């Protein structure tokens, strides 16, 4: 005889099974072009996913509704070549786990019949999602995952409009050269300070190679455990080596800890050049306040570009209305990724993967049609956009401003810091 608990368990499992078999939520008209969006919405990277959602919703709104902005697809409603079809974003949470990323990508493709995939911030997840895209023959646009290992795998359906980390590191060393010339006696020694996941490891490898090529002396090479509760011994070591410049690669919580620990130990180098990441996150800036002053970061996007990219201000206003904050390097790239993808779908006049792939490959968008400091958007055979010039920006007076290259600078470089 069944007792109450048995009944409860069996009905709960029946509910689970029926939920597994039921179609996805929120079905609507067949005309919509569905795009699968995979980000971390929970776990340590959740804030990135939440911000990405604001950026992508803004982009979808600009595509789907009429806006007086000088960007592809902004003027009309929806995708004109597909009878004004609207772009609909289907979000999924990968929790920074490659296995979950794979499962979600497969779900979006097979259950939601998305036309393309977009994501994923974490490069490890991007590696897996790009494989799923290849298997199912539909494009995957990596909006901001920047590991150089992603575009060298010979994948046909992988596209990255933004730069990869190697391009950034090259720009950083070009900048160091500029500093050495302009401020003689500074910038001869650097310390590498990086977290131990893919992001930090990849970056440091390239930085070591470039330092050797440019004869910049690396006085300390410090790898720390990501999300470590304390960085005291690491910063102590940095202090004892006293480098001119610290090249820092960190995510948000580590970046906060790093800056606070430096202050506590009374250490200030002549310059800190960061590999973007946590150092540009609003959470970091509000946590360390004025102690972020002078920090330099590489970027593929700076807000003060508005003078050169007229559409930027309008986009930023729309984004700010949703999120309450300004666009940053990540959200701007996410925004652009969707515009570029939608533009290709519109030109393909089809939602079939191979057609969209061909259209993406034929993309040739001038920099003026973007909100980025890029020359243009044009993908190579490896799916990487090579027409990108990273810039360096410096924090001060509550915002990051471009300081290099000098032609794009909107504020003079403050150097050295001590």
């Amino acid at each position, binding site marked *: 005889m069944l007792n109450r608990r048995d009944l409860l368990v069996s009905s709960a499992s029946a509910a689970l099974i029926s939920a597994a078999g039921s179609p996805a939520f929120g079905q609507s008209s067949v005309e919509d072009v569905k795009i699968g969006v995979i980000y971390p919405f929970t776990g340590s990277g959740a804030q990135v996913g939440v911000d990405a959602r604001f950026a992508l919703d803004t982009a979808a709104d600009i595509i789907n509704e009429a806006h007086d902005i000088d960007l592809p697809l902004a003027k009309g409603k929806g995708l004109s070549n597909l009878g004004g079809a609207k772009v609909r974003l289907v979000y999924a949470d990968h*929790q920074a786990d490659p296995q979950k990323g794979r499962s979600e990508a497969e*779900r979006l493709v*097979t259950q939601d019949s998305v036309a393309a995939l977009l994501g994923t911030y974490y490069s*490890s997840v991007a590696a*897996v999602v790009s*494989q799923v895209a290849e298997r199912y023959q539909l494009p995957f646009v990596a909006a901001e995952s920047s*590991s150089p290992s992603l575009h060298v795998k010979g994948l046909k359906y992988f596209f990255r409009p933004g730069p990869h980390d190697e391009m950034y590191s090259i720009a950083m060393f070009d900048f160091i050269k500029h500093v050495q010339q302009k401020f003689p006696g500074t910038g001869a020694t650097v310390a590498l300070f990086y977290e*131990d996941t*893919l992001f930090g*490891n990849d970056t440091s490898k390239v930085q070591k190679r470039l330092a050797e090529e440019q004869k910049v002396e690396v006085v300390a090479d410090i790898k720390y455990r990501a999300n470590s509760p304390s960085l005291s011994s690491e910063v102590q070591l940095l202090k004892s080596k006293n480098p001119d410049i610290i090249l820092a690669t960190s995510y948000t919580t580590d970046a906060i800890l790093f800056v606070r620990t430096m202050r506590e130990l009374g250490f200030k180098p002549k310059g800190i050049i960061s590999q973007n990441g946590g150092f540009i996150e609003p959470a970091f800036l509000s946590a360390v306040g004025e102690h972020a002053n002078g920090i330099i970061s590489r970027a593929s996007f700076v807000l003060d570009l508005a003078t050169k990219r007229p559409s930027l201000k309008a986009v930023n206003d729309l984004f700010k209305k949703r999120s309450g904050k300004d666009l940053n390097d990540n959200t701007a790239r996410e925004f652009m990724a969707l515009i570029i993808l939608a533009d290709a779908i519109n030109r393909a006049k089809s939602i079939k993967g191979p057609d969209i792939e061909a259209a993406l490959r034929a993309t040739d968008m001038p920099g003026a049609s973007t909100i980025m400091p890029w020359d243009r958007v044009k993908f190579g055979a490896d799916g990487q956009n090579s027409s990108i010039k990273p810039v360096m920006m410096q924090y001060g007076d509550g915002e990051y401003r471009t300081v290099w290259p000098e032609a794009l600078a909107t504020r003079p470089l403050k150097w050295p810091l001590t």
Partner: protein
Amino acid sequence: MRDVPPNPSTSLADRNLAASSSSRRRQLLVALAATALAACVPLGVSDVYAMNVMILTLMYLALSQSWNVLGGYCGQISLGHAIYFGIGAYATVIVYLKGGISPWIGMVVGGVFASWIALALGYFCFRLAGHYYTIATIVIAEAALLLVLNWEWAGAALGLQLPFGPDSWATLQFGRNKLPYFYFVLALSLLTWLIAWWIEGARWGYWWRAVKDDAEAAASLGVSIFDSKMAASAISAFFTAVAGGFYALFVSYIDPQSVFGFQISLLITLPAVLGGIGTLWGPAVGAVLLIPLGELTRSYIGGSGSGTHLIVYGALIVVISLLRPEGLVSLFRSSKPARGAQA
């Protein structure tokens, strides 16, 4: 982690000891029937996502059952099984990528290697009692994670990716077809269950449960405590590593964080704890409830960014732990004594 109350587990063990051979045969038949039934499910379900959920459920069932051999039957609570899982995953991929050797062999190599590691670690760690052993397992698994993170030859933080090849049973690589993975992991689950079933009736099984219940009393009766722990540990590590190898082939990409991370150790332990530690069916019941719940809540309410799915997931675990500290299988046992009395 909560303590396992000694009394219920003792009485469960007693009941198991008293179980007649006819009841053991019945258990076996139920397991075979359940496996046969599960084998028919894909005939009606072709959806890739549903297949993924079932494959993961079976994988964690196999893992948790392997863990149960050491943690449940022998009473050595390990929260560091990710080390064996990771060894299996890395061994399988490395043997294939660097040596061109079939991943089938790689999984066995990983299993054997993990067993050695388990014996080596056990040699030192089994001198620690109770919680100290548990803490040691956590620390050792974390150390392994750090080592692999810095191991350039094995891809360091970048991890390792299996090359893109045609569908093949030889390499267990299938682009869109999930059926082969399903049947492989179903067979693995059955195998781990059979091991547990065999242990329940074998001399080793009685020894291990004696070690779990009262090591000193067992020793006074001639049970070799150290050897018991070592044997349980080696068997447990072997199957955990084989499942790790399967995971690597299934996802086709591994990095240190996703196979050596603490979350893997927890996910291996949870189904057994939830379902019932040291029971034949506990890991199965726990995995069948827990894994689909985690997957479905994430997929259908996780995209919002509100984290609701984790609240639901966590709340359920808390509720079950509070209502049924002996595990979910005790639900089925409550009606058992009456039937047992008749038999």
